[in-house]
């Protein structure tokens, strides 16, 4: 019969076998959708800070789910409990799955030891975005900052995560740096681990 596809019905979403994450959609489909997310949120706010906060919120929801999904699928139901390990997990595993590549760099802040930075020359979500002059330092990377915060917080590493443009010499487009500032308790716990 026409119209009966390979999609099977499951009584419960949890009965459904977990996909292996190899499926793809076009980058444009994602870019169009992301652009709608940004445009919709623009109608809900009065200022840039609020817009970034809302994009971060949306990203947080993605991060929380990505952590659960990847711990199960890639890590055999284990999650990292050390600071550097969870950062590497984000920089490598999470980035690879979501953006198809590991992040360009992961560095520790030079001035503050509770700060870490993940940098990307051309963040996927910023590929087709140009920020109008009157929107100042607004960075759609707030969405990715939200994803990072979602992963960290749900893995037990509360942090403040923000996205910033950083100009690169000799390049027209700046790179995006995701700045992670861990909560004090995280560093204290890490110190006790030794």
């Amino acid at each position, binding site marked *: 019969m026409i119209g009966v596809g390979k999609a099977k019905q499951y009584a419960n979403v949890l009965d459904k076998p977990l996909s292996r994450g190899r*499926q793809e959609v076009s980058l444009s489909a994602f870019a169009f959708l992301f652009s709608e997310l940004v445009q919709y949120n623009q109608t809900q706010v009065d200022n840039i800070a609020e817009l970034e906060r809302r994009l971060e919120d949306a990203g947080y929801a993605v991060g929380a789910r990505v952590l659960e999904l990847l711990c199960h699928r890639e890590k055999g139901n284990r999650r990292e409990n050390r600071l550097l390990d969870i950062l590497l997990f984000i920089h490598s595993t999470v980035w690879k799955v*979501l953006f198809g590549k590991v992040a360009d760099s992961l560095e520790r802040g030079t001035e503050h030891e509770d700060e870490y930075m993940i940098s990307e020359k051309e963040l996927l979500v910023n590929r087709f975005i140009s920020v109008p002059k009157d929107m100042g330092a607004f960075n759609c990377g707030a969405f990715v900052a939200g994803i990072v915060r979602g992963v960290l917080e749900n893995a037990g590493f509360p942090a403040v995560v923000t996205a910033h443009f950083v100009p690169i010499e000799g390049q027209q487009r700046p790179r995006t740096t995701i700045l992670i500032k861990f909560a004090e308790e995280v560093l204290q716990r890490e110190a006790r681990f030794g």
Partner: protein
Amino acid sequence: MPPPTAPKSGDALFASVERVNAELFTLTYGAIVRQLLTDLEEVEEVNKQLDQMGYNIGTRLVDEFLAKSNVSRCADFKETADVIAKLGFKMFLGVTATVTNWDAEGTSCSFVLEDNPLVDFVELPDTCQGLQYCNVLSGVIRGALEMVSMKTEVTWVRDMLRGDDAYEMRVKLTKQVPEEYPYKDDD
């Protein structure tokens, strides 16, 4: 004049565009729906907003589709529907749809989706039973067709999230707007 290039096959078309992991797409869409539910509260309003977002996307996406697919003008609505099902869905979502249930006049048909990347991980809670989760897709079809002079109504008739056995949307051609020549320039 160079000979017109033949339209690409759906697979070739999908292989030729840049792609991203479908899970990023799925989860981002989920985040959008969740935000709308929080902001708008009424499920009906969320349905409307999703449809509007889809419409916005459709009006822009059709350009990219025409530019990359080498498809030339479709002779009739039947051909249009086939192109959408075999090439349109494939180029953007990597899936194909089946066109079926034509009416006698050839002005309305159904797209049945075998695979739907929007709904991975999704289950509708009791409070959201009226939610047309995939409304963005119907909006895209409506928006894209409007840009090629076809006014349509697109509705979901089957939705697996609501317990049906497939995803089926009904597309009804309501008006074919004749293209006017000379085209008026926008100022």
